Structures are given as C-alpha cells and as structure tokens.
C-alpha cells in the first residue's frame, strides 16, 4: 500500500526525483586539521563526517598487529540527534557494530594493505544527520577521507542503495523509501574494475527483478563516482596550478 505513494503515476518519487535520479551530493575534503585525512559528505539530507588517522603504530596491545599487512580499524557512530527520534547512545549498539564491521571489510578490499605491515589505520565515521543510505554515505565519505590522507588504494569504493517500487527500480533511496518500500539492496563497488566488494539485501525481491535493480544501482554507483572524481580532480588541478605559481614566483 505504501508502494502506491512512493512512485506517482507520473513517475516521480516522494521527494520529486525520477527513479534513476540521485540525491544532491556535496562534499568537502580536509575539513579537520588534526586528522591525517578527513571529509564531509552530504547526500540529500544524510550528512556524514569521516576522519582517517594513520598509518601509525599499533595502539593498545601489540598482539593485534598483522605481520604481513595493514590493520584497518573502523568506528561507525551516529550522533544522538542524527535520527528523527533521539538515539540513546552514539555507538556500541548492534547496528553500529555491524556497520563498523561492514566498513572494515569494505576498506580491507580496496586499501593496498600489504604496503604497510605491522601498522594501523583508523577510519572514523560520524553520521550527523541520517535520512537513509547511511552505509553508502559513510563509505563514500571514508573514501574521500582516505584520498585526502593519501592512502594508496586500488580504486575509489563507491556505495549506492536501491529498491524496487511499482515494477520500477529506484536508486539512492531515502529514509522514507527505506522504511516502506520493502526490498533494499546496498552495493559497494570498485567503479573502474566493475567489481563488487560489498553487497547486502534486506527483505524479499523476486528473482526476475534482481538484475534490473542491480543494473540500476551499479549505474548509480558510476554516477556517484563521476561526481566525486570530477571534483577531486578539479581540486587537485587547482592546487597543482597554485603550487606551480608559487614555485615559479
């Protein structure tokens, strides 16, 4: 019944987007001075901060160190005021612990861990405002923070979510769609290798529709990649130009 309203007869979603349209993405790298890398990312009303510390010596017990590769340490937390109803704790609950694990697995797949044996890299993600797609925004923000920190990676990791409403696959779903639409697919990919590093699906979806939704979500990932990559490149070129001027002058 909710599905009726999620997609109007004219083919628009509740927030006025078309089925294959992303929310507005805005981001800024290097928002903090103290962290080695940091980024702030907005996807519509979902706002995420990510900070990267490292690679540095192992903190705490040395037993955690991996002799042949980098240890990636993640923490996902949500501000107590980020959700519609106040959260009692910013982290430590099952959901955030699961999210922490997923982030860790995702970034283990993409960071060139074998270059840094016996040391540690911290990735901290803080959700300031949540409106669906927390995992996706967290992954995208953390990728930008890693780029800001200059950590060697195979590729960007880009995550995007999707769902299926009224025989139409929709992409980058917001909180309302997340909670009422039924099936939800979350995918993290390496866009230039066309590889999937993380995939998760909730609720049920007919097998016949799966590939259509997947295609749409993969397209979403590519779009996000293009947006992020464009701005990162632009900024880098600008910086390079300034450096050149400084060198010349």
């Amino acid at each position, binding site marked *: 019944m909710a599905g009726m309203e999620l997609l109007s007869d004219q083919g628009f979603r509740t927030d006025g987007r078309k089925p294959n349209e992303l929310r507005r993405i805005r981001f800024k790298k290097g928002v903090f001075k103290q962290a080695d890398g*940091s980024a702030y990312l*907005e996807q519509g009303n979902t*706002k995420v901060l990510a900070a990267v510390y490292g690679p540095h010596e192992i903190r705490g017990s040395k037993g955690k160190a991996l002799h042949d590769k980098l240890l990636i340490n993640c*923490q996902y937390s949500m501000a*107590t*005021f*980020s959700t*519609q109803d106040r959260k009692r704790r910013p982290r430590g609950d099952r959901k955030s612990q699961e999210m922490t694990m997923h982030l860790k697995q995702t970034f283990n797949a993409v960071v060139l861990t074998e270059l840094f044996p016996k040391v540690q890299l911290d990735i901290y993600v803080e959700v300031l405002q949540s*409106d669906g797609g927390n995992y996706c925004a967290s992954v995208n923000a953390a990728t930008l923070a890693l780029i800001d920190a200059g950590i060697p990676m195979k590729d960007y990791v880009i995550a995007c979510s999707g769902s299926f409403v009224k025989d139409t696959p929709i992409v980058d779903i917001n909180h309302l769609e997340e909670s009422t639409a039924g099936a939800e697919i979350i995918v993290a990919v390496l866009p230039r290798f066309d590889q999937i590093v993380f995939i998760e699906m909730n609720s049920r979806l007919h097998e016949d529709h799966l590939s259509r939704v997947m295609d749409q979500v993969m397209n979403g990932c590519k779009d996000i990649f293009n947006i992020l990559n464009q701005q990162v490149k632009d900024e880098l070129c600008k910086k390079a130009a300034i450096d050149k001027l400084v060198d010349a002058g």
Partner: protein
Amino acid sequence: MADVDLSEPEKVYILHSVQENLREDGRGCEDFRHMEVETGLISNTNGSARVRLASTDVLVGIKVQLTPVDPKKPNVGRIEFFLDCSANATPAFEGRGGEGLASEITAMLTRSYSCFSAIDYTSLCLLPGQQCWLLYIDILLLECGGNLFDAVSIAVKAALFNLRIPNVTMTKDEGGIELDVSDDPFDFKRLDVSGAPVIVTVNKIGHQHVVDASEKEEACSLAKVMLGITEKGTVTAMKKEGSGSLDSESISEMIESAKNVGIELNKCLLNILKEEEAKIEEPVGFLR
C-alpha cells in the same frame, strides 16, 4: 585531546611570551581566537548550532520531548546534557575513551545551567504537576584545539537561541487533558537566552593568566579557573581545575578577568546570533 608534548624550551618560550602580554599567536592575554558560529544546520533537531573556535569544533543538537514532571519540582521543565567525544577528534576517544572528559564537561554545564535564572524553566512546563518539556542537549565534539569548555558552552547557548519549541494546544477531555503538539514547522515558540551563561576558562601560566588557551598553552598551565558567567556578570558556577594550587589574590584577579571577558563574550555572541538570523541564506555548515 590530542597529546601535546612540549619540550622545556618551548614551555619557557610560551611562559615568557605570556608574561609580555604577547602570546605565541600574537594575541593579548584576554583575547579570544577567531570563532565561527552557525545555527540551524541539522534539520532533524529542534535547535542546532556549530561553533568552530580556531581548530576546536563543536556541534550541538537539541531535541525536545514531552515528559512527566519531576514530582520534586512540579512547575518546571528539565534539560539534560549529553556529550559525545567523537573519535574524529583523536583516536584516543575511540570506544569509551572520551567518557571521562565528557562527564567533566557535562557536569560543568549542568551546574552552570542549574540556577533558575539561566533559562526560563517555568516556561518549559506545560501542565504543572503533569507534563513538561525535556530538552535533550546533545553535544558532539568533533575536533579539539584547546579551550573545549568555553567552545561547548558557546555552542550550547547558540543552539538554545536557535531552539524552536513546537506550540502545544491543550483540550479538556473526559478523563483528563489532551495535549496536541503542533506539527506546523512555523508554529513554535522561542526560548529567552539572555540569562544563559557561557563558561570562561582562565588558565594560569607563570604569573600571568590567559583566556581561551590553545592546546600548547593548556599544556603549560597547572591550574585553571572556570566560571559560568551571564550577560549581567552573575556567576552561575565556578570550578578550579588542574593539579596546581593558587593563592587567593590570583584567584580574585582571574575571576575578575573571566567576568569582564564573559560579559563581552555574551554580548558579542547574542549580536552575532541576531545578525545571522536576519540573513536568509542556507547554512553552509562543513562545506565552507
């Protein structure tokens, strides 16, 4: 807090420069660093503010909730502070690492706001003896660059200024009074923050004292005095912190400067908030 390790010569340098009333970043002893205040950037909250004081970064979100009154104080609403030290600030805050600092800051805030003149607590009570508003003031510490207490208190005051409490209509029903919270975003009331205090921390460095100490200066200081000060110069809370002791004359001097700075700070803050409100631009937040 990120650990600051200073060598002896560095400490001596800071000490001497403070003595000359010309601190390492060029400020005088009673000057604040550059500060940015922005309100209304988290739409999921009833009031929010972000303060960036040099590299100290604080985000505050306030949510209001209807709750039964405390039978001990049946005519007033309640506020509750919660502070989360984000690991973004320093890896030492990971997990439960920041809880010690968090409880210290919330204790000081709770005390500063515990006096009744701070905000109009009776206006937060809807039905005396039954229902009142509970303000959850949630603070997120995003980066630590010294002088956390002051930055947090400024952010809290700014968020209280920004707070929009939805209006409630009460209808008498059989079996009691029914409360209906308005869901119109433009149907709200504001809170008067003219009595709300800010915390001013005064650090003793050598024979001098400074306000708004940077992390390096904090590392040189053995004792500090914190005061919750209102715009009128009333002290709502006071605390001495640090492992050193102070003689009574220097305490008098320190609280005197804290008072002067506090009164000025309150005025500036209120002006900036009013100015900001008059603008219609969308808040830029972290994208600046």
